[in-house]
């Protein structure tokens, strides 16, 4: 079968990009593998750092804050379950930008689906996220947080997080190729966003006047809740939270995909 490339007979660009990614799925696998293998290649503990990193942060936060936030039972489990979800989001969106800047030299030489690097960043994040779940369960067993069947909802929670992160990652990469400053600005925005989202502190300490912005209008609040409620609280998220989180994830993903695909042909003129 001969592959024919005809610049006049192209499918809608966001469908073409999707077909490209499906066709290049083995490349996505190789890029994920490369990121995981090379990140810790020369370290002694290797991939174990993926688990030790959030655990270390959790211990620090527990020492600092567990006396302050009396209202939270088993603070380590509370903070760790939130941090794992947040870290996935912040790491994948940051990586998708830097990978695109790195991949620029390759995109100049050979044809690749332009979203390959962003999709692979999400893949790498998913591997790290799944690896950090066993330590979370162990911590919960040690400090006596009951593990209920609702934990089985986690694959769905992770799917929503991944779709949201992919959407944001694609939007950021579309802009970061024109303005490298976005990468630095986003780092600061991420820190602010993390402290403004109830991740390391309980939701009920937020004053009522700020509730609208920090909770009701904060997409990460819903996505963190969908991840944390079935694990830490052992309950299913209320239906409205589940629906809003699903809607946010889906819309962000579609928006990111369409904006990125529309810019894909122009990206090469800029990097």
């Amino acid at each position, binding site marked *: 079968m001969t592959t024919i490339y005809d*610049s*006049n007979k192209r499918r809608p660009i966001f469908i073409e990009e999707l077909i490209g990614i499906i066709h290049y799925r083995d490349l996505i696998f190789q*890029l994920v593998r490369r990121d995981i293998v090379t990140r810790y290649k020369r370290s002694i503990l290797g991939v174990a750092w993926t688990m030790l990193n959030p655990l270390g942060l959790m211990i620090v936060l527990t020492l600092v804050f567990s006396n302050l936030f009396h209202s939270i039972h088993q603070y380590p489990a509370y903070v760790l379950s939130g941090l794992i979800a947040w870290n996935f989001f912040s790491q994948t969106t940051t990586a998708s930008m830097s990978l695109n800047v790195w991949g620029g030299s390759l995109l100049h030489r*050979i044809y690749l689906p332009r979203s390959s690097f962003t999709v692979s960043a999400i893949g790498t994040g998913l591997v790290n996220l799944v690896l950090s779940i066993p330590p979370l369960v162990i911590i919960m067993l040690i400090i006596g947080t009951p593990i209920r069947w609702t934990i089985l909802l986690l694959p769905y929670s992770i799917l929503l997080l991944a779709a949201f992160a992919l959407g944001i990652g694609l939007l950021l990469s579309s802009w970061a190729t024109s303005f490298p400053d*976005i990468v630095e*600005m986003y780092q600061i925005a991420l820190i602010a966003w993390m402290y403004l989202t109830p991740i390391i502190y309980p939701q009920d300490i937020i004053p009522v006047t700020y509730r609208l912005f920090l909770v009701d209008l904060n997409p990460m609040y819903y996505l963190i809740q969908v991840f944390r409620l079935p694990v830490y609280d052992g309950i299913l998220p209320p239906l409205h939270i589940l629906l809003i989180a699903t809607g946010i994830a889906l819309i962000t993903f579609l928006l990111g995909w369409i904006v990125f695909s529309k810019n894909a042909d122009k990206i090469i*003129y800029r990097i």
Partner: protein
Amino acid sequence: MQSHSSIPIILLQAVSVCFRIPQEPIGSFKEYVIRFLQNNVRYHDFWALREINLEILQGETFGIIGPNGAGKSTLLKVIARVLVPGSGHVRVRGKVAPLLELGAGFHPELTGRENIFLNGTLLGHKHREINNRLEQILEFAQVDGFVDSPLRTYSSGMVARLGFAVATAWEPEILILDETLSVGDESFRGKCSKRLEEFQTKGTTTLLVTHDMGLAQSKCKRAALLYQGKIQHLGPVEDVVRTYRERFSV
């Protein structure tokens, strides 16, 4: 194999590519916003290709010559699907294998074997296809004993050989050769040219971009002279080389 020699394998109709270059480079977002608000973002248009019409037939070795900055690389990028032209029509039948810079996707910390899979998938091959050709690639690259060592321990010749072996492990329908290949030592270079000649006898279409007029004349029948984004002369290689020498030789 069925012959399509009457139908062009590569067809370009009125292809133009224009780069908008900010007159003074804008380094930051802040600067851009300020200039944008002041309506002070000035570009000048650089036409890398203007109204290019080109037909390349299946199986021919076609030469592209011209001075530096003539638009040769841009033309190759348009054919390789890397750059979508601003206007015009491109049609390419078959897979394009670029031998631009070998091993561009290699990672120094990965082993030779791992890099073969990474580079192979970058070229659009499936994991299974690479597995099937693994022995052949390793044999051609001659990196015995280093297969499972990180690439950073390789000599530059070994890296180039591995890159060439992966890039040419599959017989491409269209091969892009940018500049003369100077891979490794004398004997390996011989092996490389032998493989490329094998492709040509099997019907691979080759685009040869070079500054070496002797090489162009020995390999190609037809050629195009590119200058300032336009095809100045298209025809038998002897005529095109003569025009090139008349216009650009000191």
